[in-house]
């Protein structure tokens, strides 16, 4: 457990260095961008000194990471707002979108994946697989634009875009999230169907499944009793990987639906060269992805007892 924690911290530190190097290498000078036309070299130098971007690379990195370790992510170069204050209200937006989107994807993929596996030689199976292929080919932003046109502009069932925080009521919150969650979740669900299908197909070839069937269980009961847990191992791995994809997908969806989430913040700040904010957001995303990977590792041991003993060795 201690070793795992060590790896976690080391990965995070390595990631922070990579983030810093890459953002540092981006072309452009934020001092020139802030001051605009006509800045004299003295003014530019004074601005760089004020922001601290004139210091040697390693000093800047040490200063940043030192602050991060104390929970201080710095302040926006433009507005002087603490990075943590910029990020905080957006966590609710992005996590609502990602978690609900993933939940919807699972709700779609589990039953349909099972159908695609069990009925793989019937029309139901073919149809499901074809639908999954079709769904995967739809870009999420396009699905978003289409949903807005049909359900917001034409039918007026939901707002076209924007966000209403949970604190202002469940109703407005939910109505603002329906379309983005569907756009994100449906496409992800289509991707997941194929993984669920192949995980179940593997189970169908196993001896325990044949045994369960031979004692008179129906296909569905055998699959539900033995299949789900065995398939879960590979599904959890896929889910861990997919969650990172969902977060990336959420960035696109946030743009289409004008949601004030982490993705929108990231794109805005990259465009503006407010690198201190960019670093904070990317580091947070890396942290979440690492946390998910750790959770996946831990869940292996919970799902499959055999891995528990090998883990200790």
């Amino acid at each position: 457990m201690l070793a795992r924690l060590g790896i976690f911290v080391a990965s995070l530190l390595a990631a922070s260095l990579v983030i810093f190097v890459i953002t540092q290498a981006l072309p452009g000078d934020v001092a020139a961008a802030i001051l605009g036309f006509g800045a004299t070299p003295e003014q530019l130098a004074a601005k760089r000194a004020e922001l601290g971007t004139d210091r040697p690379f390693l000093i800047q990195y040490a200063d940043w990471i030192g602050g991060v370790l104390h929970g201080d992510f710095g302040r926006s170069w433009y507005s002087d707002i603490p990075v943590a204050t910029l990020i905080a209200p957006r966590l609710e937006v992005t996590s609502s979108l990602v978690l609900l989107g993933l939940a919807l994807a699972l709700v779609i993929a589990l039953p349909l994946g099972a159908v695609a596996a069990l009925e793989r030689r019937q029309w139901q199976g073919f149809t499901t697989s074809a639908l999954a292929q079709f769904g995967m080919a739809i870009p999420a932003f396009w699905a978003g634009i289409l949903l807005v046109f049909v359900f917001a502009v034409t039918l007026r069932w939901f707002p076209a875009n924007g966000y209403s925080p949970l604190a202002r009521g469940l109703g407005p919150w939910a109505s603002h999230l329906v379309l983005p969650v569907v756009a994100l979740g449906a496409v992800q669900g289509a991707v997941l169907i194929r993984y669920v299908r192949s995980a179940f197909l593997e189970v169908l070839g196993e001896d325990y499944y044949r045994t369960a069937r031979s004692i008179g269980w129906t296909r569905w009961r055998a699959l539900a009793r033995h299949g789900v847990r065995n398939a879960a191992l590979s599904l959890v791995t896929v889910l861990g990987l997919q969650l990172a994809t969902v977060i990336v997908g959420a960035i696109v969806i946030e743009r289409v639906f004008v949601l004030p989430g982490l993705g929108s913040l990231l794109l805005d700040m990259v465009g503006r060269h407010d690198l201190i904010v960019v670093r904070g957001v990317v580091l947070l995303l890396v942290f979440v992805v690492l946390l998910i990977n750790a959770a996946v590792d831990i869940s292996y041991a919970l799902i499959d007892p055999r891995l528990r003993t090998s883990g200790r060795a």
Partner: protein
Amino acid sequence: MTKWAGTSRPQRKVRRMAVAALAAVSMALTACTGGGTPTPSVTGATVDPTAKSLVIGATAEPATLDPTATDGAAGTQALLYNVYETLVKLDAEGHPKPLLAQAWNASPDGLTYTFKLNPAATFSDGTKVTAQAVADNIARIQNENVAPKLKTTMALVSSAAVVDDATIDITLTKPSVRWLYEMAGAAGIVMNPAGFAAAGRQTAGSGPLTLDVWLPGDSIALKKNTAYWGTPVRFDAVTFRYFKDPGAMTASMETGQLDIISNLQAPETVEQFADTSRFNVIQGSTDGEVTLAINNGGEHSNVDDPDPEKRVPRNPGNPALADVRVRKAITMAIDRQALLDTVWSGKGQLIGSMVVPTDPFYEDLTGVNPYNPDEARRLLAEAGHPKLTLRLRPAALPYASKAAQFVASQLAAVGITATVDELGFQQPWISTVMGQADYDLSIIAHVEPHDIFTFANPNYYWRYNNPDVTALAASADAGSQEQYVAELKQAARIVAEDAAAVWLFALPNLVVAKQGITGIPQNANSSLSFDVTTIARA
């Protein structure tokens, strides 16, 4: 063969704990702002939703709330006149009228302006707007590291003498008509000196609205300043929502989420608002000129500066553009009416120089260097450049990208190959094109009032160095109001005849409002502000 292991009781417990832990993580992620702490940072959460509110869709989102910190119109659009007030304000005809200053007069030598402040004027925290506050604001622009444009304006001020609480004498180093106009913009903002330190993230103005919540990138929510010293606004809450995608803004307007689109960025969508029972489309003018900038090849005055820190690299533009025949050929190669129809759905007005029709010194110059591709080819051959390759580096903004494609195809027809290289507007366009003049051609809208003056500055990125224009501009600025108009008119003509740039069209002010909303100014004469002080809902 796989061996199945049943679930024993302790394992179940471990699993339950793990599930609880995962749930806790996700709760922590979702609940960060829901937990009772007053961080109402998402879209105006502190204003009672039943209050009279106005929601405005806009595109140019400010990076900081301090309108003096950075260049460009984004910083002032939501705040100028709504939250921050200036000494004077321009009326619909573009003439200065009182705001914080009740009255003013210039000394006979034109060097000293005496401003009488409105004694009723207070900042939102209740303190009086005093002559000392005005002096403090001038000193701040002079001494702090603010936008260079404002520093240039305030560099003219040699002294700001407080006569009494409500009177200030501002003495200039040379007479300037233009300086008074500048006092209606960002340079003339009188900020509460108590708010200087936190100006980037909080406002400290004297206007009818104050900041409620700012969610950078998404929205600025303003609320009524109940202690306002002048005529109050007719809304309890005014929210500016920012859209990167014009389609999303249009959809929001159609679904009724927005009351106003402050300036339609996709004019081809104007037909969607044709239903006059629901919408009202207002078409007026702005100060914006969409300009095909040409690097005229004049040397920057700092090229030979002995101090290497101040030395600017030699002009990296194509030397062929220093030849007026080549520039004229570029102008004549472009069918500007067709361009306006293609790029901006024919909305807007053709102009022939850096002057918009609402400027007092406007003159129709669209006939100078008219569309004539044959003549363009002849001029290029005469100049020795029958074939020419130029870098066209537009800012990555919707109108500029569209215009760039159009311009490139028309230039190709006269033998000029324009390689289009779009640059992100804030970065790196501002530093590369505007800062270092590292371009041959570029496209951007210039929205500053009276920006004909930029052609009098040889250091501006046009790199246009014509002593006649510089002298005319200086003399116009130093003279009477009549002289100002007459001499700027002359300067505009010279610049047009020199083909110092191609003025593609004047940006229209296209506002879409819900039916029943009145008082929206037709012309955005100072494009710097979306002024809500006159707006009402029936």
